[in-house]
């Protein structure tokens, strides 16, 4: 049994040609979430991780965000950003009981700017890595040294994956955007307040299983799926015998699509439109008869049509009352 379970790495980053490929609707949390979702699924009945080592600079909402994303309580262990944090995290993983449940390590790095008007350092990769340790203490010495070789968290993880014969996925992300154009959205102050109807924070949190993990409810009486989950079957109105049913995150088909421009967006999306221009929104059929309304990201409007196959990723939606709200968006499968 290898020490690191076939890990996943996600490297949207900023590439050296000066073309940004990290989504402007991404941050440390969404990058880490995407890396985690790239891990191979756990075998049925296998225990899930109860300890999560975080390497990098994360928004404060991770206090509850990762538990909501994983769907169960998790102990967070914060480490400093960069290689020192990675070393510290690895040392703690190795020191844990070999009989314990698997441990997760999520490392994120995003290029820093030296000042508000400077360009980020394009020579450094940006992105996130997720590593799942099947059991503590089983990381080989060689792997440990590879992980510490750097020059940064994501590159080090890629080296380890390569040594295990795992190909890290290549960069993916936005096309046709200039770096300058995305800065206002990336750095926008999170001060927007509601001007009327809005989703209170408590309702947002209540909806997270459906919104973040695409959890529908299957009815034990009539077998139909209800999404979003509401504690009542929408076909037969049963309130008992409903069980959580995760919908596929990586396979959906566009049933209808529109492009919002010319000031047609709700005000919550003003920052995004100012930074990026128009965007597409689609009705995506996630399973037969189960549809979700999803904004399209990582693609130019017009690229997604009725019938296009899409995957879904966690992204920032809009700022509200001091924090970013997150939810899934659709991106075309190439």
């Amino acid at each position, binding site marked *: 049994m290898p020490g690191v379970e076939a890990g996943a790495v996600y490297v949207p980053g900023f590439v050296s040609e000066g073309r940004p490929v990290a989504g402007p609707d991404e941050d440390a949390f969404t990058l880490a979430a995407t890396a985690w979702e790239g891990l191979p699924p756990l075998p049925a009945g296998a225990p899930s991780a109860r300890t999560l080592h975080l390497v990098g600079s994360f928004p404060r909402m991770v206090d509850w965000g990762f538990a909501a994303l994983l769907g169960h309580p998790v102990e967070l262990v914060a480490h400093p950003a960069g290689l020192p944090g990675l070393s510290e995290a690895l040392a703690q993983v190795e020191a844990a009981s070999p009989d314990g449940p698997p441990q997760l390590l999520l490392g994120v790095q995003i290029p820093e700017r030296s000042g508000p008007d400077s360009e980020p350092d394009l020579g450094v990769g940006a992105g996130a890595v997720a590593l799942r340790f099947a059991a503590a203490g089983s990381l080989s010495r060689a792997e440990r040294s590879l992980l510490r070789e750097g020059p940064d968290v994501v590159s080090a993880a890629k080296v380890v994956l390569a040594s295990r014969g795992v190909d890290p996925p290549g960069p993916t992300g936005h096309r046709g955007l200039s770096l300058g154009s995305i800065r206002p959205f990336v750095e926008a102050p999170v001060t927007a307040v509601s001007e*009327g109807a809005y989703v209170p924070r408590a309702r947002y949190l209540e909806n997270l299983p459906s919104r973040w993990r695409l959890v529908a409810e299957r009815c034990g009486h009539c077998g139909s799926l209800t999404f979003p989950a509401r504690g009542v079957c929408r076909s037969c109105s049963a309130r008992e015998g409903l069980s959580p049913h995760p919908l596929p995150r990586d396979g959906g088909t566009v049933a209808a699509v529109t492009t919002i421009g*010319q000031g047609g967006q709700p005000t919550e999306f003003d920052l995004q439109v100012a930074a990026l221009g128009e*965007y597409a929104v689609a*009705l995506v059929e996630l399973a037969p008869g189960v549809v979700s309304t999803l904004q399209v990201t990582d693609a130019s409007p017009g690229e997604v049509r009725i019938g296009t196959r899409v995957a879904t990723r966690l992204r920032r*939606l809009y700022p509200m009352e001091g924090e970013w709200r997150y939810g899934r968006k659709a991106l075309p499968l190439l």
Partner: protein
Amino acid sequence: MGAGHTRFGALDEGPRALLRAAVDGAFASVDRGAERAQVGEAFLATLGFGGWQIGNSSAVLGEEAGLAGAPTTRVENACASGGSALRAGVRALEEGRSDLVLVAGLEKMTDLRAPRRRYWLGVSGDTEWERLAGLTFAGVYGLIASAYSARFRSAREAMAEVASKNHENGRRNPNAHFQKAVTREEVLRAPRVAEPLGLLDCCPVSDGAAAVLLARPDRAREFTDTPVFIEGLGAGSDRLAVQERPDVTRFAATRRAAEAAFDDSRMGRSQVSFLEVHDCFTIAELLALEDLGFADPGGAVSMTLSGETRPSGRLPVNPDGGLKAKGHPIGATGVSQVYEIFLQLRAAAGDRQVPGAETALAHNVGGAGATATVSLFRRG
């Protein structure tokens, strides 16, 4: 037996002045006159756009209509508030305690800052899922239009024809917000708002008010020799979020409302002289023709392109310009449709008179089809 209407558009008047003008117009239109004291109950249809008076706004109707002390109630079903208030008014009349019931609709929309206006334009859709994905109503109808266009040929041209026809009709309505003709080509070339819908596929943001006075049929002749009778009323609802409906190109709420209204009446569809339908976006008029049972799925395309729905056609639709050209002050719209029918069925619609109009249907939709009402009328 009475109906009043303000101009629709970007108006200087505030909500109170608009209500007063519409109600005064309704009283002035009663041939043998009616007293304010005869009004036993009043209903105000309004969304409360912008928040100028979200709670208890029906008391403002009581004040402005001079109905000292009469019971007043606000009815809110988003864009279907007017049609819903009409039903409430008829029910109140049937209770038997009122000589007259007043139903008024109002919205004041243009005095807000643009961002606040956009915020309010989406509050009647599904907030948690549609809005968080970045949709206002234009976007939701854009999704519907994309699915409809993928299914039926020439749908985009038919949408453009809806706009062109309703703008042409609006030119003959002095109350209409838009008085300017547009060609199909101009509609198709207009800036996109929510692909495939462009600026000229969307109804404008308008101020305005309308009011009607209702009396029991057996007493109508005390007030006029030419009453208009309500022949049938129906209403329906559907899931709020479009994503939860099995087919986004059908409005089940409209279908239920239409079935209920025809069941309630002695009329059949072939007897209807003209339609007032809810064309907040051009695609909505096509859906309405199908869901109301005047065309098969997809059949609204050829019906529209062949000119059948023009004033000279077999079944004129929206002779007053519809929401598209007349304007759409949200709460006022459903009452405004009844005002138009009142004029038409009394042969008082002037330049835009539908020749020989005997009967009419009014169709009012809340949001993107979450609620709907259908009402049938007959000349007295």
